[in-house]
């Protein structure tokens, strides 16, 4: 196998990898700005320079020349090479800044150049704290500056499109954004204009940067030149925790980070997962966080004298049981949910089984034409496939309506959905029967007929599993805390923080923004137990373990197997 020596350590490699990517894959840090593994390689930032040599081949023997110690004689190239664009070759010897003063000097020089016209307004820059230029300037850059002139001035607040703002002075012209629209989203909405030290990226005349994936350039931008119009100036990176999770805007389940401050979701950014979304996230996924912060309920309610009244959780459970107890299980319609986790749907199914009811069904939320064959799907729910794999199928609307009309359905138990809002039933049709509702937001239109309203934890507050449209099972983790104490959530929230040891007493702990809700996997066992059917688990992890052991369509899908990037169920032997 071909070998390469980097800073004196020998590595074996296969194929013809590029040196920079190989180094990054092997934990050898090299400073760089313009290189991105998903984009073409322009080698324009000139930051990743290294010294490269090849063994000298003896012309007569065709073998490498050796010195008196038997070591191969290495001829170093006169110019430093950009490691991002360098094809590795057998016998190559590389010196990075760790072993070569020449390389360290070149990197320092380059950072000096990058900083001379950079505004250095880090104290007010949204990127500061997670800025590759800032980090690498501190790490590899020079002390101070020898530049004693006015910096070049460029447009400061250019609205490139509805979602992205440009500060051209901060731009270091790495062209990642331009390459993204050329090569990935193919909208070709950005280009570099002007020349030399004046150039910066902008849209062509008359073009608006309204690419549905436009906000990816914010993630790509190695400085604070491109910022989110929605998120800018709202929070500094160090005031937030970032929780790896998935978005629930559609059935793709793109991987993301939820950024939380004061127990509110402030921003959603992309998280790389080659099996699902690559490095990208649609704009609508990024902006879809208000549902976690706004119109959230405040504790459970029960209907008394025609009005929903705030009660304790115990009272709410008791009321639900009171309503359900007198009804034949077969007369209760259990509605599962493609918004809820696999675990929650599974518990609902278990409860329905215990009461002798039909298997739950779920309400599909399909928006034809919304999908784009990439990271957006027509299905606007995150877990339809998870439901189907549990045997929870799309509702036959005509059938359930006629059963309701004929009086065959005498109660409805709704898991995290909105049958009135979705048009399955009218409010009038449900007015006379008990409706027990797990819900996320006070905008849920079924609330007007709900007899017991149980606030459920959303994807950012719970632990659970979602299965995307390609059969990829992924875990979610709590990004923010709920009001009530739940040991499982407490443990998970600690683990999922960027700093790995966050506690509810961190500075972003904010009681006001804690929603008094509970994960459905905590509510359902309470109800089931009161109905005489114990449904006790130590936590969602153990629910999923049981699912993985008992349902062939989930065979092997344990939390350990899913890890941070999830698993393709078909690949671990689960039935499709």
């Amino acid at each position, binding site marked *: 196998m071909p070998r390469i020596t980097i800073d004196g350590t020998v590595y074996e490699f296969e194929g013809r990898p590029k040196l920079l990517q190989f180094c990054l894959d092997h934990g050898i840090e090299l400073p760089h700005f313009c290189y991105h593994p998903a984009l073409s390689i322009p*080698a324009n930032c000139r930051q990743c320079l290294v010294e490269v040599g090849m063994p000298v081949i003896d012309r007569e023997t065709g073998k490498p020349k050796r010195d008196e110690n038997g070591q191969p004689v290495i001829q170093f190239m006169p110019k430093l090479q950009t490691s991002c664009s360098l094809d590795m070759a057998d016998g190559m010897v590389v010196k990075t800044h760790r072993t070569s003063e020449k390389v360290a000097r070149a990197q320092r020089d380059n950072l000096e150049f990058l900083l001379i016209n950079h505004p250095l307004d880090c104290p007010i820059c949204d990127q500061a704290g997670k800025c590759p230029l800032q980090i690498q300037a501190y790490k590899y850059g020079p002390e101070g500056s020898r530049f004693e002139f006015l910096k070049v001035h460029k447009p400061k607040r250019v609205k490139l499109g509805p979602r992205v703002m440009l500060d051209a002075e901060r731009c270091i012209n790495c062209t990642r954004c331009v390459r993204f629209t050329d090569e990935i989203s193919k909208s070709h909405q950005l280009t570099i204009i002007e*020349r*030399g030290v004046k150039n910066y990226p902008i849209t062509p005349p008359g073009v608006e940067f309204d690419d549905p994936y436009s906000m990816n350039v914010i993630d790509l931008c190695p400085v604070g030149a491109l910022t989110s119009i929605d998120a800018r100036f709202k929070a500094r990176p160090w005031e937030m925790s970032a929780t790896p999770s998935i978005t629930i805007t559609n059935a793709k389940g793109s991987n993301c980070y939820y950024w939380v401050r004061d127990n509110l979701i402030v921003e959603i950014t992309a998280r790389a997962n080659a099996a699902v979304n690559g490095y990208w996230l649609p704009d609508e996924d990024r902006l879809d966080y208000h549902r976690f912060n706004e119109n959230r309920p405040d504790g459970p309610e029960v209907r008394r004298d025609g009005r929903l009244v705030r009660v304790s959780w115990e009272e709410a459970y008791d009321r639900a049981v009171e309503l359900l107890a007198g009804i034949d299980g077969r007369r209760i319609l259990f509605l599962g949910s493609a918004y809820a986790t696999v675990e929650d749907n599974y518990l609902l199914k278990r409860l329905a089984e215990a009461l002798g009811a039909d298997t739950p069904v779920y309400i599909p939320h399909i928006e034809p034409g919304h999908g784009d064959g990439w990271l957006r799907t027509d299905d606007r729910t995150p877990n339809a496939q998870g439901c189907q794999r549990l045997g929870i199928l799309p509702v036959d609307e005509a059938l359930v309506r006629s059963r309701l009309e004929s009086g065959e359905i005498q109660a409805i138990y709704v898991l995290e959905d909105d049958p009135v809002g979705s048009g399955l039933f009218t409010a009038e049709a449900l007015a006379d029967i008990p409706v027990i509702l797990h819900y996320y937001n006070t905008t849920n239109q079924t609330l007007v007929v709900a007899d017991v309203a149980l606030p459920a934890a959303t994807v950012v507050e719970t632990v659970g599993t979602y299965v995307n449209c390609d059969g990829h099972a992924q875990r979610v983790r709590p990004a923010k805390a709920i009001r009530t104490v739940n040991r499982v959530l407490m443990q998970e929230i600690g683990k999922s923080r960027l700093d790995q040891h966050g506690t509810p007493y961190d500075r972003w702990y904010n009681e006001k923004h804690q929603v008094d809700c509970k994960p459905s996997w905590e509510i359902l066992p309470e109800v089931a137990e009161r109905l005489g059917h114990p449904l006790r688990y130590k936590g969602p992890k153990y629910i999923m373990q049981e699912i993985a052991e008992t349902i062939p369509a989930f065979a092997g899908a344990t939390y350990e197997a899913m890890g941070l990037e999830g698993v393709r169920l078909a690949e671990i032997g689960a039935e499709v």
Partner: protein
Amino acid sequence: MATNGAQSKAGDWRNYKRVLLPPIRDLHRLEVYEAHGGYQTLREVLTSDRWDPKSVIEEVKKSKLRGRGGAGFPTGLKWSFMPPVDDRPRFLCCNGDESEPGTFKDRQLMEFNPHQIFEGILIACYAMSVRTCYLYVRGEFARWIEHMERELEKLYAKGYVGQNIMGTDFSADIVIHKGAGAYICGEESSLMESVEGKRAYPRIKPPFPAQRGLWGYPTTINNVETLANVPLILHNGGEWFASIGAPNHPGPVLYGISGHVNRPGVYEYPTGMLITDLIYEVAGGIRGGKKLKAVIPGGSSTPPLRADMIDGVTMDAESLRETGSMMGTAGLLVLDEDTDMVSWLRRVAHFYAHESCGQCTPCREGTGWLENILTRIDEGEGRLRDLDLLLDLCDQMEGRTVCALADAAAWPVRYTILRFREEFEARCKPSLIPTGIDLTPTS
């Protein structure tokens, strides 16, 4: 003139007969060009058994023709880099984007002898089995583009360009492509980007154009003057060409002489001319009988030579390299004793700052910074330490970018300061912080 005993390598140049720009009236018209034997060489190459693509390349190699665009790369060798013919398209680009200060020789060819360029292009196309050539001309040459297009139409009408040229099974098209005013488009890979309709950012090499050029296909890029030499080589033989001028850098060359001379202009002579002959005899000496201060031998990017350095120096790659400069495009800038070198260098730095494409960090930021400092020195606000900073910045730019523009911007700064340091020091205020650096001027 003292010549240190060195001889001109140009032989009997006073009786030299011009072959690139022969003294024939209206030669730019097809009728006149043909009446003087034009396109006979092409006909010979296409129809005679003596010539096949391989032997044409061999003949060009034998001629030792070196590119006239500045880098001086052997042309025949470059042609032989083209991969074997397969079913992919192949391209030739003829580089007429002449834009460096002090260089203005290609435009003479395009104005007075465009058909020799076309004939050279067609022979080169034949040699490399290329079907399409893009003649990339600097957009400011609007008048010559217009008349070249007119002449090209005549060629199409006569069957000299296009399908089945001269009734043979060889076909080739020539497309004249107008630049839009950027110096960087003269760099071969950004020229290709420009032809492709993109922003002219130079490409990283490898891959070289012969492997992946225009639209990813094998491509060769040659300068206008280089290709204009090709019909001469094929007509008179490679040995004839190799015998003209300096042995290692032979052939006729268009010297563009500008600056403080009595008769500036483009002069055709063999390579290897003594710089002193060019200044004092060809160009009629320094204006106003003044003394010489400096010569920039090959366009503004080549290091300037002090007057005391040019004795015995001839215009060919070897001699100029030994002296500490380069042949470049043989565009000589002559500066007399009254020239303010600081001001001159400031103007050159301004050009490169203005023309840097801005792709690579060291060039984008470095060229602007160089201009900033030189402006300050020129305005009398500079400090002595600025000179060392300038040299430092040259170190930080050279060899660290995708193309050679950073080098081209740094060389004049570095060598003008090294060779005229007293003049710069005289303009600078003392540094606030004393430096311990040896300030003795060196060449």
